[in-house]
């Protein structure tokens, strides 16, 4: 069994922090009220969390083939995760997924979709209720 050095311990701590951020992102996914807030938590926390895990691997293994691959994975993750968040949020707005009723302003809906895409105060829009009735 190899000896555990200080560098290893730092690496494991970084991995642990990454896992914690991933966990927080997952909790946010459940707790936040609408698609867009959930995407916020899902992209931010999960990107940094996973990047932290990759950096942790790099620290533990050093600049070995494995460590360099982890670093490249992390960099690609940083470059691509925001793109998917952008695509998902734009897609859901265009599809008509309404924003939470506490939303303050919707400039995008006002400019591009002919009116803010915000839920009415009762919690559900008329259309979504009709859809639910049809399903029922």
């Amino acid at each position, binding site marked *: 069994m190899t000896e555990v050095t200080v560098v290893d311990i730092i690496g494991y701590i970084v991995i642990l922090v990454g896992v914690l951020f991933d966990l927080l992102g997952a909790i946010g996914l459940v707790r936040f009220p609408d698609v867009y807030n959930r995407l916020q938590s899902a*992209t931010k926390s999960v990107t940094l969390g996973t990047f932290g895990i990759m950096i942790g691997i790099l620290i533990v293994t050093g600049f070995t*083939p494995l460590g360099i691959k982890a670093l490249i994975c992390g960099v690609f993750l940083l470059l691509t995760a*925001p793109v998917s968040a952008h695509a998902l949020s734009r897609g859901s707005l265009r599809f008509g997924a309404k924003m939470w009723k506490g939303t303050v302003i919707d400039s995008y809906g006002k400019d591009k979709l002919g009116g803010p895409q915000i839920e009415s105060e009762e919690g559900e829009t008329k259309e979504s209720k009709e859809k639910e009735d049809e399903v029922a």
Partner: protein
Amino acid sequence: MRRVVLFVLSYGLWLLLTLPGGDWPVYVVGAVLALLVAIFFGAEFTHRPLSFLNPRRWFWGIIYIPVFFWHMLVANLDVAFRVLHPACPVKPGIVKVKTALKTDVAKAFLANSITLTPGTMTVDVDEDVLYVHWIDVFGDGEDIEANTKVIVAKFEKYLMRIFE
């Protein structure tokens, strides 16, 4: 010219990915793939390939990394606070911000940086206007100047030096 730069970049990436190298087929396959990438996607690549060699851009790029990670860490602690707070305090909305950046690459990086930093997520880009979903809107969100100051200004000065 830009095909040559793209070839060098993609072959370098291949060599990094296939460390520690190995037999000659590894290098040959990598060269063929990099060549195909350079031929097919060279037209989509940057129009000023020589700017890759400009040390001033690299310098600001390296300065940008710690700045970006600092904001990203703050962003995550912010999201963590909101997630763990019993009342889940959010005041979301989509606001407009303006950017002074001109090139597509710079705008793409700005949008990505915004998405990964405190409470903001880029929804769409339209010329010089970015639509940003903000988890904690400043005031009523109508003031484009104020939004721009809070969301964009901290990255813009770096990105302008790196990409333009």
